[in-house]
């Protein structure tokens, strides 16, 4: 986090927040700040716990652990986890909207905005008694509340529909009305749960304008959950990224966008872009762990993004770059950037990320077992029977088994061929093959049936080498390599 340390307290400081539902940890030890007068976005894949965080902040859930400290404009402090939900809005001035719009659909637009000013009007009406008797300043307060409602109607572009039932408005207008209603409570912090969900691009732009206007003119800080990257990247000053209830990144939109953990978790980008980023970060560990798992036939298409989930939503965000937002599972938990090692070979891990779901942790934990497993795999080359957890990993291989006939102790001339040029071999497989003494195309080209079986045992593949015809690919490449220096496949953008 590159936040400049200000003397002013952040408006909201979430410290070590945990929320457990039975055995399920929805949020685990989450800490972040929402700075005053800024728009902070909370993003993350579906099920990351964003709405749970909102429900904790706005009192709809009582967090299992942690502290949510709210500091008002006048320096008044509230611990939100200790307040009942309605007092969080009434006293601490935190207003929220809902993911599934919750308007008072049978009341008019104007009435919706008047209900939002309940507490002020309640005081003015002497808790109903004076208002009922018609004494006191209620009429004046009522007129003021209508003026305020008018102000927000104008901002939300709803003046023409003020006397229509809220349930009769189109979807985009309902979203704007919900924001206007929340603003009528005079909040210091406005929490918006997916304000752009279901909006068309034009309505999204109008929403951006409304939020920027709120930020500029009212001094209200905004915390928002959003999936629409065009909104998030455009308007937020600060982004917090969650995955599986844990914070994986926190910073400005620029920082977050280039954070490999975020990319892995959430922002699928074009293969080339990921390549670039990962080379920059150079994370060998990631690549090792990601490039295992089921083969392409059973997994997503190689062309789909690393996060390949069922829903694939491509949007054009502010800078005109293409960002593919994945609604599928994120993979950031497996990314450990602190182990970064420069590795120019790291390439195209993205396509494999989603496949790597299952086993990295158990594998790393039991190397000894895996060594044995490799033997078992060799004994039964069909390896179908080998349980998934017993797949060999390169660290355990060490080339001790005499599986493949034409192994070399080291690459000829100290320079290995780029085995990834063979379709079907990724960085991890390349590493594995290298560990087993396979460095060159001609080695693969010379494989016999037994070698293939052995290699498949190492790689925990069955039938893939034959199916993808590595041998003939390798033969072609070997010829090429003999005639000209190897060229890299693909290339930078």
């Amino acid at each position, binding site marked *: 986090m590159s936040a400049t340390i200000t003397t002013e307290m952040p408006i909201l400081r979430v410290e070590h927040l945990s929320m457990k539902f039975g055995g399920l940890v929805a949020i685990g030890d989450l800490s972040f700040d929402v700075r005053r007068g800024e728009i902070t976005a909370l993003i993350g894949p579906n099920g990351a716990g964003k709405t749970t965080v909102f429900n904790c902040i*706005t009192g*709809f859930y009582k967090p299992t652990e942690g502290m949510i400290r709210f500091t008002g404009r006048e320096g008044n402090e509230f611990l939100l986890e200790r307040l009942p*939900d*309605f*007092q*969080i*809005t*009434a006293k601490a001035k935190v*207003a*929220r*909207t*809902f993911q599934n719009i*919750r*308007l*008072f*659909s*049978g*009341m*008019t637009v*104007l*009435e919706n905005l*008047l*209900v*939002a*000013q*309940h*507490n002020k*009007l*309640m005081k003015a*009406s002497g808790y*109903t008694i004076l*208002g*009922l008797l018609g004494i006191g300043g*209620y009429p004046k307060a*009522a007129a003021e509340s*209508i003026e305020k409602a*008018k102000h927000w*109607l104008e901002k939300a572009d709803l*003046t023409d529909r*003020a*006397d*229509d*039932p*809220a*349930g*009769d408005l189109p979807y985009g207008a309902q979203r704007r009305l919900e924001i206007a*209603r*929340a603003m009528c*409570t005079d909040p210091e912090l406005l929490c918006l749960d997916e304000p752009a969900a279901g909006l068309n691009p034009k309505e999204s732009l109008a929403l951006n304008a409304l939020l920027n206007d709120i930020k500029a003119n009212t001094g209200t800080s905004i915390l928002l959950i959003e999936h629409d990257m065009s909104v998030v990247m455009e308007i937020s000053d600060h982004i917090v990224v969650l995955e599986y209830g844990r914070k994986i990144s926190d910073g400005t939109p620029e920082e977050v966008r280039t954070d490999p953990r975020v990319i892995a978790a959430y922002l699928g980008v074009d293969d080339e872009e990921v390549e670039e980023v990962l080379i920059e970060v150079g994370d060998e560990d990631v690549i090792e762990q990601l490039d295992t798992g089921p083969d392409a036939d059973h997994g997503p298409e190689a062309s789909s993004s690393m996060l390949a989930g069922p829903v694939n939503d491509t949007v054009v965000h502010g800078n005109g770059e293409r960002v593919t937002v994945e609604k599928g599972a994120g993979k950031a938990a497996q990314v450990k950037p602190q182990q970064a090692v420069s590795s120019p070979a790291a390439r195209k891990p993205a396509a494999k990320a989603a496949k790597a779901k299952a086993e990295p942790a158990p594998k790393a934990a039991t190397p000894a077992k895996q060594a044995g497993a490799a033997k078992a795999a060799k004994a039964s080359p069909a390896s179908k029977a080998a349980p998934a957890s017993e797949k060999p990993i390169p660290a355990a291989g060490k080339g001790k088994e005499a599986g493949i006939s034409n192994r070399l102790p080291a690459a000829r001339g100290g320079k290995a061929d780029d085995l990834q040029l063979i379709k079907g071999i990724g960085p991890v497989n390349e590493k594995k093959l290298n560990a087993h003494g396979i460095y060159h195309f001609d080695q693969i080209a010379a494989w016999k049936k037994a070698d293939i079986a052995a290699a498949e045992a190492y790689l925990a593949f069955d039938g893939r080498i034959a199916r993808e015809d590595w041998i003939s690919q390798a033969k072609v490449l070997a010829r090429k390599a003999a005639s000209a220096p190897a060229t890299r496949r693909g290339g930078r953008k």
Partner: protein
Amino acid sequence: MAMAETKNSAGSANIAAGLREAVYAAVIAFFMFVLFIGVKTEQNIHNELVLVTRWGLLATVVVLAAVVRFLQVVYLMPFLASQKTVDAKTGLLPTSVALRVFSKRNLIIGVVVAGALLLFGNAIQEAVGPYWGAYVGLLRAAAIIFVIAWGIFSFRNFISTYSYSLGFILLVLYPVVMVSLFGFQGSLKWVDNFGIQILIYVMLAWGLNIVVGLAGLLDLGYVAFYAVGAYSYALLGTQFGWSFWILLPAAGAMAAMWGIILGFPVLRLRGDYLAIVTLAFGEIIRLVLINWREVTNGAAGISGIPKVSFFGLISFNVSDPNYISKVFGIAQSGSYYKIFLYYLILALCMLTGYVTIRLRRLPVGRAWEALREDEIACRSLGINTTTTKLTAFAIGAMFGGFAGSFFAARQGFVSPESFIFLESAIILAIVVLGGMGSLGGIAVAAAVMVGGTEILREMQFLKQIFGPDFTPELYRMLLFGAAMVIVMVWKPRGFVGSREPTAFLKESKAVSGSFTKEGHG
């Protein structure tokens, strides 16, 4: 020629369909009624239970069902369809049935018939004998009703614009009209059985409307608050001799307190669960009244409840020195008290209505309606839903308490019999039929439901049709049920399904019932 043919074939197809439908209706009617009407158990002279068959009556019912269904399919349905079809030549819809029925020509006929029968009706009745005389009376009533309906129909726009003021004027003038028509003694029935009875239910339904219609909290035990109010006045009035005017607010406060006591445990309940707990609460109150004999005198009830006085200035007890006929020097009559009570309950109703209208425009009323629409959104806007619900329970219960103490004063006697679950159900039915949240609709529903059951007693001519054993008032629950079914089919959201907004910028547009929610309890 070709057109006539198609018309003919369409007609015959229609008749075939009508016959088929009639057969279905007859079969269904037969199976529905064979055990209800076809056979009947009776005790004979030896105290034995014998089975009596009534095949003739069953056949009548079955044939009636078939004929009605046939007429509906062959004539009514094509007619209704033709009403919606635009004339190809003029491009206009056909003149509506109502306009045709309420034409000037029919008015003249109606006026002539009504006038003639009013003048010579009695003479004709004497001439034709009691049997046909009853029909003459019926015809006279029908002619008068038609003329009144004609007036209402032709001024319908005016009436709908000024419905509240007109309704109020009508209610204020009602006893005057009745007394001038039937005299003091003759007006008793109309003022007491109709006027006061209906207005008590109007008040109860308006009170329940705050809880059910505005706050959306389904309360099946509302009669408990009615009972609390009635017993508060009965006990304090008989034991301490306190005046009605002190005990009315006391009874209201007592009921409100019980409203809050009920409210607390059910705050977290919604929908069916809330309904069941409130129902149980109503039963608990009734059972306590029955069993706490030392205080409530059990099922025997409390009698000798003091009458209401006109703020202590004018009394309605014959023995008092300030008895009304002594003060004004007029003849003694029990109807003065009834007329006074009528205006008292009218004033209480107006108070209820006024407070409800005022509350709706205050933040608390908007919060009730918001609570009905979406409780979670309410909390997100800083509304304390606990106190909002409790105020709804308390204020609704308070009006129930007022009505209860009035009831005790009017009857002079209370017993747990008056506070059974059926009363709660009737009050709730009135609220639902009237249209939840709408005062006018609820008042109309109360008039129709309570007045309708009362008017059955007046329908003695039905004895002409169904025989002298027929007692129409036994069928009031049937009427109640039938009316509910018809209204719910015709207007699923009640008489007045729309909702008046409490504030507007440019113009007040009624909110259609399809947007408002019923609440989740």
